């Protein structure tokens, strides 16, 4: 081989090696970038998925809060009408003794019969409102006649102490150990506890 050929051989070998080195480096660089792009894409997807989940949670929570607030508002409204129904019922009951004597007499008859049966004593004392005294006396006189019970009717005396009430009666045994409060107030109190759901249903027209 001539000297010139040898020189060319050296140059060519060096050029090829340099080209190969650069090609390999570019290829590695491309791979590094491709890997980085994949990793960056995955990272971004993971972050977005996490953000999406978090925001969905926020959305559900906010919607639930808004719905709860709505339910609370409607319940407050319902409750206001239930209270109004009881207030108006109380007002109506307060007027009954004066406005409907016959009806009130029948009511007293039922109240007394109920109390007598519950107490089961042969002698009782009745606490009545001052304006109801005559009406109660009439009811008591007729009590034995329409009871239909085999046992004789109890002897009921009217206490001199007047009952402060909207209406109704209180019966007690002479020793005052047992008593039965059957007044509008006591029955209304029980109705407030037991009838609230039914009143709500009636107000909403679901009955």
């Amino acid at each position, binding site marked *: 081989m001539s000297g010139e050929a040898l020189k060319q051989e*050296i140059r060519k070998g060096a050029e090829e090696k340099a*080209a190969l080195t650069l090609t390999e480096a570019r290829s590695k660089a491309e791979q*590094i*970038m491709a890997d980085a792009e994949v990793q960056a894409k995955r990272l971004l997807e993971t*972050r977005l998925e996490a953000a999406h989940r978090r925001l969905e949670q926020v959305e559900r929570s906010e919607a639930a809060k808004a719905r709860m607030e*709505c339910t609370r*508002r409607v319940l407050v409204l319902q409750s206001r009408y239930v209270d109004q129904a009881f207030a108006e019922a109380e007002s109506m009951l307060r007027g009954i003794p004066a406005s409907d004597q016959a009806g009130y007499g029948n009511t007293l008859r039922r109240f007394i019969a109920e109390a007598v049966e519950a107490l089961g004593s042969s002698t009782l004392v009745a606490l009545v409102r001052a304006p109801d005294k005559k009406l109660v006396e009439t009811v008591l006189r007729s009590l034995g006649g329409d009871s239909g019970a085999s046992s004789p009717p109890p002897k009921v005396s009217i206490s001199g102490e007047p009952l402060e009430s909207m209406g109704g009666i209180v019966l007690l045994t002479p020793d005052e150990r047992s008593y039965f409060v059957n007044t*509008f107030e006591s029955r*209304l109190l029980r109705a407030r506890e037991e009838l609230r759901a039914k009143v709500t249903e009636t107000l909403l027209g679901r009955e």
Partner: protein
Amino acid sequence: MSSIKDLLQEEKDAEVNLKTAEQQAESTLRDAKVRAAELIRKAQSDDALVKELTQRNKEKITALQASIASECQARAADTETRCKKNLKAAVLLVVNDVLGGNNER
């Protein structure tokens, strides 16, 4: 005719060229690594998409809240209408219960 000296010079030039190529290769790789690191750092810290998502979610929530509030308004109005209409019946229910006989005490 090339002398030995020429050949040695050629050899030396080739070495220099190769060294330069190697340096270029190293530089290319270094640049790639820097750009890759930058790409990953950006993916870790770029909040633009998350911010956009958050903004869209806020708008969605606002619309949802408005829709629920509107439904609620209608529900409250319906409740009010029903209650007003049935108030008398509810009052009579209570009055009749209080006046009624055979109540469990």
